[in-house]
């Protein structure tokens, strides 16, 4: 097979006001006709920039391709004029982006947006293009295609929009398809369907494919070869099977190991730093860290009394409408949830977006007022507490949010952030005592206490999440709700934060509710797991039971949708 795309020694820089950032450093790889290459890396690794360069879509300025060649069918794309590039884009090479919500033009019908490319590149008439558009929509599995072609993007679900993007990308039967994190924004079950579709279409149209993702698991089934990028450089490139079986580069090993599996896991997750030093040199791995850990699901009535009991909790949001803005219906975000949670244990709540898991977490803390039911915490029904008593109660129960960028007040230093809750609740006798505690907590969450006077924007996502944890701990709580607390983080950082949460639980005897859409993360951290769907807990049991002997059809479909990918045996 001949080479379709051949990237040679590609270098890309970004010029900011302060400095020059090398986004892509000497990257070379190639794609043969009909072959799929997975380009894997964490955020900031340069993978998206590389893919945009292949389309010559890097915003210039600030971006600049400084040297290298991108040969497409033997011709260097970097030497082509914009005019020539336009004939290639969408026709020979096409691209799918991560955000289906914003990637389609909101004011045009989806059919118009697909036929536009056909009319441009294939010289079709409006009528021909429309007919072909309907065929394409049918092919990507949109029900009722002739009708749906007239729909506007906002009238479709996220999964359907991504299917429209795919239809648009394959419309001119391109030779190369670039997919930049096409499934990251989607729920697992939808992700599975979209991946299957892409795989099928690739076979059908014999396209070469460059599949960019941060998740090794996603491409395990789909890619022929994998290229691993880290800090703007290629770390390792090999056949997919080989990468998974015997990764050679320490970074790849770390990347594979830090993702919790559904099967057995070590007591603490391994992280990239267990395999590689800061400078990138290989490290001798401590064999003891690899031992699979048997969780104990038993409890001791004395040590693990029931701390939290939720009884038939309902949270409805009214939908206003009608002539006078009266309530015409309710959104039943949480619809009759009951469970018990024992001290020192972790309850994992999983479900897809919109299932009500976040509202449930916030209703338990009364950040959202529940409509009905009771939340009994340590014998006290907190739903009946008045405002001052509730504020008092808040020191015992805390929450850690998902987005590390919005969960810290950008105008307050870390010290101010950590001291504020102590001020509110009168913890510590004087400023020095409070500051001492803040320093101690900083050390506990693995940060340097010297950085207390800094502002949030100077920390990375993972560090901010540690600060959020420290803030939650300032009030000496017994119970913490982690609401998608690791979802926004890169896998290697995610592993570190998960380990930290487990360390803190062990040391302080904390009780967690861990909310996530990620089944493997929930499996790793939880003792008990509740699966949520449409505001209800459909299945609840200890983690082993739920994952290995699921009782409900819904749970089974969730589990089946998880990308397999990581043959865990290789680690043990």
């Amino acid at each position: 097979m001949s080479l379709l795309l051949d990237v040679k020694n590609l270098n890309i820089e970004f010029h900011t006001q302060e400095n020059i950032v090398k986004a892509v450093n000497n990257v070379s790889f190639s794609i043969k006709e009909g072959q799929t290459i997975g380009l894997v890396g964490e955020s900031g690794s340069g993978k998206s920039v590389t893919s945009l360069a292949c389309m010559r879509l890097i915003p210039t300025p600030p971006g600049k391709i400084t040297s290298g060649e991108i040969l497409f069918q033997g011709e260097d794309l970097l030497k082509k004029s914009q005019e020539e590039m336009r004939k290639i884009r969408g026709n020979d090479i096409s691209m799918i982006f991560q955000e289906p919500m914003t990637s389609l033009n909101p004011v045009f019908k989806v059919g118009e947006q697909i036929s536009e490319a056909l009319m441009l590149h294939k010289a079709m008439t409006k009528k021909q293009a429309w007919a072909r558009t309907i065929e394409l929509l049918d092919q990507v599995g949109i029900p009722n295609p002739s009708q749906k072609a007239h729909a506007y993007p906002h009238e479709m679900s996220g999964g359907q929009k991504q299917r429209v993007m795919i239809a648009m990308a394959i419309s001119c039967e391109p030779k190369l398809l670039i997919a930049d994190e096409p499934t990251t924004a989607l729920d697992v079950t939808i992700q599975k369907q979209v991946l299957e579709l892409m795989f099928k279409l690739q076979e059908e149209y014999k396209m070469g494919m460059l599949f960019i993702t941060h998740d090794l698991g996603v491409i395990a089934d789909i890619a022929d070869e994998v290229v691993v990028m880290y800090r703007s450089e290629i770390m390792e490139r090999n056949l997919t099977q080989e990468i998974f079986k015997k990764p050679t580069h320490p970074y790849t090993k770390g990347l594979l190991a830090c993702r919790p599996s559904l099967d057995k896991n070590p007591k603490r997750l391994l992280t990239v730093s267990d395999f590689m030093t800061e400078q990138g040199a290989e490290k001798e791995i401590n064999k003891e860290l690899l031992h699979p850990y048997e969780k104990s699901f038993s409890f001791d009535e004395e040590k693990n009394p029931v701390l939290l009991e939720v009884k038939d909790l309902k949270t409805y949001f009214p939908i206003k409408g009608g002539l006078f803005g009266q309530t015409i219906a309710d959104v039943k975000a949480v619809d009759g949830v009951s469970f018990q949670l024992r001290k020192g244990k972790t309850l994992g709540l999983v479900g897809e977006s919109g299932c009500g898991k976040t509202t449930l977490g916030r209703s338990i803390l009364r950040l959202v007022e529940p409509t009905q039911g009771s939340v009994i915490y340590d014998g006290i029904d907190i739903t009946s507490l008045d405002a001052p008593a509730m504020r008092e109660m808040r020191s015992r129960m805390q929450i850690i949010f998902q987005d590390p960028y919005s969960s810290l007040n950008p105008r307050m230093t870390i010290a101010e952030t950590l001291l504020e809750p102590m001020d509110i609740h009168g913890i510590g006798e004087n400023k020095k005592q409070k500051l001492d505690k803040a320093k101690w907590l900083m050390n506990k969450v693995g940060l340097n206490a010297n950085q207390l006077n800094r502002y949030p924007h100077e920390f990375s996502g993972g560090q901010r999440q540690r600060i959020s944890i420290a803030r939650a701990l300032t009030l000496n709580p017994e119970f913490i709700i982690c609401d998608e607390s690791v979802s926004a983080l890169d896998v290697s950082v995610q592993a570190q934060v998960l380990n930290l949460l487990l360390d803190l639980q062990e040391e302080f005897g904390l009780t967690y509710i861990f909310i996530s859409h990620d089944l493997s993360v929930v499996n790793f951290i939880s003792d008990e797991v509740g699966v949520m769907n449409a505001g209800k807990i459909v299945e609840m049991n200890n983690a082993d039971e739920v994952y290995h002997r699921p009782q409900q059809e819904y749970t089974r479909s969730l589990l089946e949708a998880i990308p397999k990918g990581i043959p865990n045996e290789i680690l043990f």
Partner: protein
Amino acid sequence: MIEAIMKKESALNKMNEKTYLIERSKSLYQDAFERLLKDKAAVAAAVVVFFYSVIAILSSMGIIAADWNTEVGPSYSPPSASFWLGTDIFGRDVFTKIIHGTQVAMSVGLFTSLIAIPVGVILGAISGYYGGLVDELIVWFYTTISSIPSIMLIISISLIMGKGLVAVYVALGTTSWVSLCRLIRGEVMKHKNRDYVQAAQALGGSKLRQLFKHILPNVTHIVIINASLQFQIAIKSEVILSFLGIGVQSQPSWGTMIDDAKLELVGRGVWWQLVGATIAMFIIVLAFNILGDALRDALDPKLKGKN
């Protein structure tokens, strides 16, 4: 439990103060300020604003241009070495009058902002944060105010309050809080649902604390940008009010000077009052315009680190 462990650990290894050399760092405002300093046009604009302010203060204290009302030469003498910008109908020095007019212009900008900002911020914050009936009332109030064309409102208010500077302040102040109020309301509503405010609630912070300590500091940049805009609009509006005869009385302002020109140009060809006052005003309004744009760029609400 956490407390107990901390006590134990602290007792074990007495924390050594010296190991904590706390690092200082820049707040977002300091950072924005430094970015502003790199923008040459913005620095020049700031210098102009500062210069005008100093002149206004000195003039209001009677240190400079106190003699604007004395006859120094013949009526309508053209610009010359002794009268840089000529003289007016009463033989008064136009340049001195312009200097004195700075005081009026800057005070109109200042007092209008002093009325509009507190009203706009307080109503906007209450409306955005508390929502419900209070919100509906405030929204109704500013929808109503903004439904009356502001020129009609200004005319009515100054008619009622009588002529003079105070009427100008109040008239411009009552019409210019609305846009700020609307902006602040929207921004507060947005921040109210941010995780860091939810976190403050989860930590037991009262509503007032959430609003004053967390939300308001995050919307102040809007006030700053808006103030720079309002300032120049007020200065420009003073001219129109002077023309309508409801502005400043018995002291020179740029507005009255420009207004005088309608009688001086035709026939007499006296252009220097018009040109002098126009340039004086052009410079400060331009400075505020440039500063406003630069502030918007520097205080960009897209907070750093997100990209």
